[in-house]
């Protein structure tokens, strides 16, 4: 495997890792993802019609077989999916938290209401009505 491909592969792996740490939400990133998916589909169709093409491309990068090229591509794609899924999961957790918090706080009397109640000589601080 020659240096060019190694460098490329490392760059892609680091990119997937960086995605984990930063967000890739937003219209632009979503559009990029869709274009990449389209490109992948096109490449897959082409390599099915011209099976020798994969081996030729692999040889270009100094990799043994076309299958190996596919394998490396799969690894990179998998890391990308992992990063995206982890981020989405975290975002959902945040939304869930905000929802639950709002619900919980709405169910108890506000602190102001409590103080007013206490001022009227009613039950001292605390206690559900």
């Amino acid at each position: 495997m020659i240096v060019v491909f190694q460098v490329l592969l490392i760059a892609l792996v680091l990119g997937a890792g960086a995605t984990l740490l930063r967000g890739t939400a937003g219209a632009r990133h979503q559009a990029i993802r869709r274009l990449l998916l389209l490109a992948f589909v096109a490449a897959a169709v082409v390599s099915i019609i011209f099976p020798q093409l994969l081996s030729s491309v692999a040889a270009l990068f100094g990799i043994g077989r076309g299958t190996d090229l596919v394998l490396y591509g799969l690894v990179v794609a998998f890391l990308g999916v992992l990063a995206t899924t982890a981020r989405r999961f975290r975002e959902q957790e945040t939304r869930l938290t905000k929802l639950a918090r709002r619900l919980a706080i709405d169910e108890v009397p506000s602190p102001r209401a409590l103080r007013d109640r206490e001022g009227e000589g009613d039950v001292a601080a605390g206690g559900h009505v």
Partner: protein
Amino acid sequence: MQDCWLVVPLFNEGSVVGEVVREARRTFPWVVCVDDGSSDDSAEVAERAGAIVIRHPVNLGQGAALQTGLDYAVGDPDAKYFVTFDSDGQHRVEDAADMVEVLRSGETDIVFGSRFLDARTTPSFLKRVVLKTAVAYTNATTGMSLTDAHNGLRAFNRTAATLLDIRQNRMAHASEIVEQVGRSDLRWREHPVHILYSDYSLSKGQSLWNSVNILGELFLK
């Protein structure tokens, strides 16, 4: 202490929280317990002892419980000071009161309790090693210089309490608080506190495995 709220995250401490709340209310009349989906009678016990109890509909974590309690208490226009306080009896009310007095002096915005400022608390050797490592890591990554990075006893004035935004729901919230303080202009200081280790609280205490999880949660922000 009519201008203070005690914020107490609560999870399955039905056997001790009643006593903890009663004892606290002798000094702090306003206590909010956030029941984080307990499966026992913690919430009812805390309520009977005189606390206001907010119930999370699902278990979210101690960090989330703290933020909920703080959001609630900050909504009280008459409240000036907020103290995070554990529900398992490890914290002393006197320490909390002392920390509020420090805030009243106006010289600082936040007081972090520390069990390592003097020799009054004696955790086991292994616990000490883990805590000191946590302190070293926290100090290195936040630019702060604390002596105790995972102490649940903290006091905030309104400025600090409104600025804080805890997003780490689970155990990494302690480090997140320190980090947010470090990045802000808030004035902070530490205050010696005594942690009461009983057989009960030690058995419920943070397991050492959690240290790995805490680091993991922080890294994969």
